[in-house]
């Protein structure tokens, strides 16, 4: 078993691309030109500095995943593409969130403990937390914290790898 959300609308595509200027523009340009919808995007170099990895989550309700993958494959700088079905992969996303503390510090810290989030910084009436989890769990924490008053929130976009238990 794995811990991902069985939501078939979002598919994760992990592409290995040449680490060259303009490659991200080619990839994102392809999505806009072909009217594909990127839900989330994460980019970083791989262990081999010649290549970067771009992880997308795409909305495959309107466009068959197959077409997205084939069009991506036509880009000369795209070296490899892996499609990850949410059911067979592990996804993680990082969130940084600053919330008001107000007069409910105790309640807030219970939530932090519940989720095992990290306290990164604390100031007058504000606390900054960091948490990494699968995206649906981040949504959940976000909703728990919302009543305190969200000051700032930043999420990274998801990264994914195939799970090992199937």
């Amino acid at each position, binding site marked *: 078993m794995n811990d991902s959300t069985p939501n078939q609308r979002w598919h994760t595509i992990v592409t290995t*691309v*040449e680490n060259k200027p*303009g490659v991200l523009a080619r990839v994102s*340009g392809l999505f806009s030109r072909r009217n594909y919808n990127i839900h989330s995007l994460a980019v970083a170099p791989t262990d081999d500095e010649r290549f970067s990895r771009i992880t997308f989550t795409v909305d495959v309700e309107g466009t*068959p995943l197959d077409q997205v993958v*084939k069009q991506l494959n036509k880009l*000369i700088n*795209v*070296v490899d593409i892996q499609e990850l079905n949410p059911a067979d992969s592990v996804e993680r996303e990082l969130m940084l969130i600053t919330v008001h503390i107000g007069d409910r510090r105790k309640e807030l810290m219970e939530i932090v403990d519940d989720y095992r989030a990290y306290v990164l910084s604390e100031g007058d009436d504000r606390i900054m937390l960091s948490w990494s989890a699968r995206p649906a769990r981040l949504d959940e924490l976000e909703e728990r914290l919302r009543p305190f008053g969200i000051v700032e929130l930043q999420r990274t976009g998801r990264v994914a790898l195939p799970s090992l238990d199937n």
Partner: protein
Amino acid sequence: MTSKPINGGEALVRSLELEGVDVMFGLPGGAILPVYDPIIDSSIRHVLVRHEQGAGHMAQGYAHATGRPGVAMVTSGPAATNIVTPLLDAHMDSVPMVCITGQVPYGAIGTDAFQEADTTGITMAATKHNFLVSEAQDIPRIIHEAFHIATTGRPGPVLVDIPKDIVDPTNPRSAIDWYEATDADMDLPGYKPIKDGDPALIREAVELIRDAERPILYVGGGILKARAAEALRAFAEMTQIPVVTTLMARGAFPDRHELCLGMPGMHGNYTAVMAMQESDLLISLGARFDDRVTGKLDGFAPTAKIVHVDIDPAELGKVRQYNVGIQGDCRVVIEGMLEAMGELGGAGVQTDRTAWRSTVSGWQEKFPMTYEQSEPGDKLKPQFCIEQLRDLNPADTIVCSGVGQHQMYASQYWKFDHPYTWINSGGLGTMGFSIPAAIGAKAGMPDSRVWAIDGDGCFQMTAQELVTATVEDIPIKVALLNNSYLGMVRQWQEMFYDERFSEVHLSDRVPDFVKWSEAMGCEAIRVESPEEVAPAIERANEINDRSVVVEFVTDARENVFPMVAAGKTNSEVLVHPSQQDLLS
């Protein structure tokens, strides 16, 4: 290998020579200046155009006619943006082309320098690939990569943007250790085109073909790109399956062949349209189910299974789901299908198709292409002019067209019996394509007769390239069908906008096409009555030392038929009004 220091500009020109470039089309300017100096000493013939769009379409025409990549070279900024239209045109129609653009010095990029444009950014969606070269040392390798990408897999345009400093001999950044780039130097880890089709899928395809009762070979431009016309003919003759040739594939199968049904689609002939529509198996070879072929998609060929062969896997299933989809080069796959058909027991094991053949020939007899001849005193019928041109020119004449009614008449009424004799802008539909494309074709095939069939709207977009034709001694012939209108738009306004004609009437008075053509160094003839048509064409055919423009003054009321209206299914094809009663 010898290695001696030369500059980037010399390396660029030498690299082009090594790729076998014999002609290139271009126009110099600031950022590309240093490359124009070694051009003087090069074996490459440079054709100086009057507008950069012309350079691009000439490179396309050259590539269509010769099968070799067309090369255009222009400067930065406005020159680069002027060539975007031909690049996208080549991209849509899979034309192999390499375009060199100048760029401001590498260090000045991003500063909004004079004549700076983000050329690679602008052309990303208009090319198969593009490069911004940062170091002179990379020039030979990147030029080799550019030609490799342009000519392999699904062909297309590749742009190489060259900053001025790396080709300017006065700049130390232009020094390179020369090397002759080979395939081993290429660094394209993500580019692996596949030519061979999967034998198991080829076998499946052939089994579907064997069992089909109403098969049609639906042939697109990929046949020409794959040099597969001979293989196609062998397969069609073996299986006796009728062939439709799309606008991009006219000539890929001879029009005069008994199995040829001609062009399908929005202005296809009735038989080609209906044969696809009623088919139980469409064997699509290098075609892409373009909306101009399918009409309303959910009513297209409703009973047909699909075998789809294309070198670009993204075409398989993009528009219409296939039963068997084969990624591969059309020639290789067709040869595989011939062999597989032999293994199944040859053509004789196929389902009996007598009924289908008689249905198809029934349509051909009932609904031939037709138009009404002009009444005395009326203006010329454009179809008549095309028929006369066809009958008075050899079958291997290269015909280039612009976009609009004249393009459809040319495709409908010419008889294309040889591959690579029909050059037009199919996917992008670029008005003004024909004159520069014809010049490019003639530059590549100097011994061939080249006719541009143009309309008066198109002519006014790119006619200045006739000056290029005159000065560079590349004589072409232009049949200008002048109806004083943007004819195709006029037709739509007549048929679908209650005859409310909006901004489609050009002018009955100006320009004077004869005077204009003469001013550009051409022989010019105006033709206004049917009996003048043949003598004018014959005279044009006798003139080979300069370009000739024959202006045919044609009837603006004439519309292109058959027609499948936008949003309609192919079953709702409108035939010529005189045949309407025959539709049961």
